[in-house]
């Protein structure tokens, strides 16, 4: 077990290192940020001063080495635009993104699972066919376009909900969150719904497939033969069987929710990491882009590591297979 964890940890380190090379060199080949940051009427001396200040005059491998040295100390460089440490900027925007992703995950589960359950239990019902058509649409619709339509309908036409910003936040256990105020909840609803749309479709499909499979199993027929009530069969015998895989998969999707939040945050002007990234890309703020990408790489590698270890604890066969390979 320990050997397995150590091997996985080493693989994770290797991945993070490789990604840091790819990301750093990739980002630094593009454009020249100096011309964006120095005023157009600056003379050559000003520009050279700026280049030296930003460390752009050194060879790129040396810049990378400095970056790596900094990264080991938790310093991913200073933002060209804000002059603040990039890591601090990202951590500052992270709570808003996490809050949005959690809300979206919550919506996906409370909306997707009941709809999937219904359409799995009554596959021939017209409502079920509607739900399935909706979930196919949910997979096809580009997130950003749905976001636009949500704004058009609820903010512009109906005027029910605000379409930009985070609204009031309040502190709960020391964390600033919109979910603690009514104004905040009104602000988070549309972006969270937008972000959760794909995951709602996913939850519907997973639940429906699970329910249909479980309902055809002998243990359901056996439970009926025991005279168990339909409600108990569905909510105890069937749901208990499908909830474990469905919730596991949904949990795994959390990482992709954070990735997708880039789109939603841009549309709804939600002040999270995703919007920060897009702004940084457009302004060629390289340290922030690199820092964001490194944080995401770390984040995903971490999720995969945890999942791998969890699976190996739950299922000893995974471990054996790995040793054989």
């Amino acid at each position, binding site marked *: 077990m320990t050997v397995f964890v150590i091997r996985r940890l080493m693989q994770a380190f290797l*991945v993070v290192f490789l990604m840091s090379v*790819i*990301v750093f060199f*990739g*980002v630094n*080949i*593009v*454009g020249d940020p100096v011309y964006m940051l120095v005023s157009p009427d600056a003379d050559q001396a000003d520009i050279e001063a700026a280049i030296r200040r930003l460390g752009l005059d050194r060879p790129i491998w040396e810049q990378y080495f400095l970056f790596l040295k900094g990264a080991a100390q938790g310093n991913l460089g200073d933002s060209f635009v804000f002059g603040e440490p990039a890591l601090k900027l990202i951590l500052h925007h992270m709570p808003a993104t996490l809050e949005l992703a959690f809300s979206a995950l919550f919506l996906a589960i409370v909306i997707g699972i009941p709809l999937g359950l219904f359409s799995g239990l009554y596959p021939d019902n017209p409502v079920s066919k509607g739900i399935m058509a909706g979930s*196919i*649409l949910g*997979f*096809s*619709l*580009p*997130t*950003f*376009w749905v976001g*636009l*339509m949500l*704004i*058009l309908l609820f*903010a*512009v036409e109906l005027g029910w909900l605000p*379409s930009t910003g985070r609204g009031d936040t309040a502190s709960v256990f020391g964390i600033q969150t919109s979910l603690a105020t009514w104004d905040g909840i009104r602000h988070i609803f549309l972006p969270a719904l937008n972000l959760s749309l794909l995951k709602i479709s996913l939850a519907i499909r997973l639940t429906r497939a699970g329910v249909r499979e479980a309902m055809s199993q002998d243990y359901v027929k056996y439970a009926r033969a025991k005279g168990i009530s339909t409600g108990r069969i569905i909510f105890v015998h069937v749901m208990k069987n499908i909830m474990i895989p469905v919730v596991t998969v949904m949990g795994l999707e959390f*990482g*992709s929710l954070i*990735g*997708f939040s*880039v*789109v939603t945050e*841009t*549309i709804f002007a939600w002040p999270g990491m995703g919007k920060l*990234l*897009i702004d940084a*890309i*457009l302004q060629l703020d390289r340290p922030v*882009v690199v820092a964001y*990408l490194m944080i*995401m790489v770390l984040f*995903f590698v971490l*999720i*995969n590591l945890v999942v791998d270890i969890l699976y190996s604890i739950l299922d000893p066969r995974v471990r054996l297979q790995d040793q054989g*390979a």
Partner: protein
Amino acid sequence: MTDATLQPSSPATAKVETPFQRFRTEFFESRIASGAFVVLVIIILLAILAPWITPQNPYDLAQVDVLDGRLPPGSEAFAGYTMWLGSDGAGRDLYSAILYGLRISISVGLASGVIALLIGMAVGLIAAYVGGRTEAVIMRVVDLQLSFPASLVALMLVAALGKGVDKIILALVVAQWAYYARTVRATALVERGKEYVEAAQCLGLSKMRVVFRHILPNCLAPLIVVGTVQTASAVSLEATLSFLGVGLPQTEPSLGVLIANGFEYMLSGRYWISVFPGIALLLTVASINLVGDHLRDVLNPRLKK
């Protein structure tokens, strides 16, 4: 054995169908899939024929009049024709802009789809056929990449590469090749284990011949299915990146760029500039997905009884 037991169980012997004919019949049995197929064909035709069926070339500055800007649907352009879908901020006829945008969106989606398919197929076949350490390394890389959402991979790449058609296609290819590789490898592994491949090897056929003449044709069905779904997702992903302003530049206005341009006008009620290109995008992506979805049902032998 008697006639009575044999006859009803094998109605297919009555008329001999080629696999393609059977596939066609089964595919068009579904009304939704047939409808989606028709819509897709129309969209592709519109995109191909755009220069001949639009009143203006929206990117020929001589044909665009800024005074026509932001006209609602049905307005008359300065040049005299009716702008059925209205015009955008720069005075371009939206109907024309959408058809030209479709050309770009579909070309980018198809190009990246085909390149990713070829690369993924080659890698998958190599992994399945060579096996051993090569396979282990390749599949590690594939698994690693698939653990990141494709959209995030593409976003990372454009963040690093910058704007432009070539860069977007490269980003989409890198984001998607792994899906093809995994599919091909999985199918090829199954085929490799089958007796006919063993038989072919016993006959002393060359490895290349076994791979290309025997294994590859059997991987085609799942490849087609993955290909349609991935192409739809490439079109959608390109639109998303372009909408975010990190995809195609203004000089290559795909549907995503058009939608992004209309976004600033939407809050003031000029919905059409974003909505109509959006509907075109939606129809394209949804029809490809529906066709792909049904292809999966028809081509997947496991679902057949």
